């Protein structure tokens, strides 16, 4: 699958432009509003499900395969899935300006809410009720993070070499407090060597 990029953005389309047609016909406003809605309703994480529903099911801007490819790129690169997806899909639809518009839509609702909460937090420092609520949320977040990690890791916890790579990473970061730069510079090449192409063994994806 290859994504062709038109050099010149086309003018905004009328509503009801043919779906799956050359993506240049999507208006910047529509990109902005679509990501604004995703960014505004995706409470509790799991942005990927919201993205898939909006981009594949509702708008038809990407088919399943294109969505998965964009997600693969988002996951392989630094940055958050949510914002990387907004950039990649916005770029695909309307070039760099589309990427900026998608990104702003994605981050604006949550960003403004967090900013308002942050102002409240800093000016109410020492308020015992506020700290108690945040302590409870923090504890719940730990349970949530642990569950999500185990769910994602479950697929990997069957092969010895994957378990070893997971353990090496955790020990280096959490217990030996090795800087993340060093961890990535050592463990990633090691893992790439293990999974190098043509090592005469076929893995399930």
């Amino acid at each position, binding site marked *: 699958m290859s994504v062709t990029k038109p050099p010149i953005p086309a003018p905004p389309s009328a509503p009801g432009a043919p779906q799956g047609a050359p993506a240049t016909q999507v208006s910047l406003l529509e990109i902005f509003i679509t990501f604004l809605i995703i960014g505004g309703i995706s409470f509790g994480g799991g942005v990927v499900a919201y993205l898939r529903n909006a981009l594949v099911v509702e708008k038809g801007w990407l088919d399943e395969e294109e969505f998965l490819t964009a997600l693969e790129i988002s996951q392989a690169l630094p940055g958050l899935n949510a914002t990387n997806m907004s950039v990649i899909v916005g770029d695909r639809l309307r070039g760099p300006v589309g990427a900026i518009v998608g990104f702003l839509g994605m981050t604006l*609702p949550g960003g403004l809410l967090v900013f308002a909460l942050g102002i409240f937090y800093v000016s109410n420092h020492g308020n015992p009720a506020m700290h108690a609520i945040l302590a409870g949320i923090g504890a719940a977040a730990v349970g949530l993070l642990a569950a999500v990690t185990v769910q994602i890791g479950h697929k990997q916890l069957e092969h010895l070499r994957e378990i070893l790579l997971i353990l090496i990473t955790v020990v280096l970061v959490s217990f030996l407090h090795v800087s993340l730069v060093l961890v990535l510079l050592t463990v990633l090449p090691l893992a790439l060597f293990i999974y190098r192409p043509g090592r005469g063994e076929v893995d399930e994806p």
Partner: protein
Amino acid sequence: MNNPHTDLSVLGVFSLLSLLAIGGGTAVLPEMKALTIDAHHWLTDSQFRDIYSLGQVAPGPNMLMVIVIGYHVAGTPGALLAFTGFFLPASVLALGSSRLWNHFDGSPWRLALQMALAPIVVGLMAAGTVAVARTAITGTETTLIAVAVFVLVYFGPKIIGAKVNPAFYIFAGGLLGYLTLT
């Protein structure tokens, strides 16, 4: 409190974190703690916990709490700098690389990179969980809340056959914190 040196540090720290966030926001939490608490002394452990929790209440990308760290350190300019630092470098990289990635469609190295990243990302997420746990698990109440949420999220769908929006657990955690910790 707003001196140019601090502003530059905020931008620098979060730009570095942006480029290190392979595997998403959770993966970079240990490094964020090390830089903001240990290296720069911008926050205490419990402030980090509080600000992380604030971020959980908002929709959208789950690391918007960097805005609050920036605000706490250097006011509104700090908020903007932390946001820009944390999101701009990775986004620019995503913009450039998505075209490159498609260029390598069918390359065996693309699959190799994905397979190599998968266990590392799980390891980094586990380390991120440990980092939050070290600030958030402070006693019996917080331990019980965390264990209860883990059990409900992990085993709940198998028992009741439906998935509950994680936001529900976040709000329930806040309520339980209010009831048991004040």
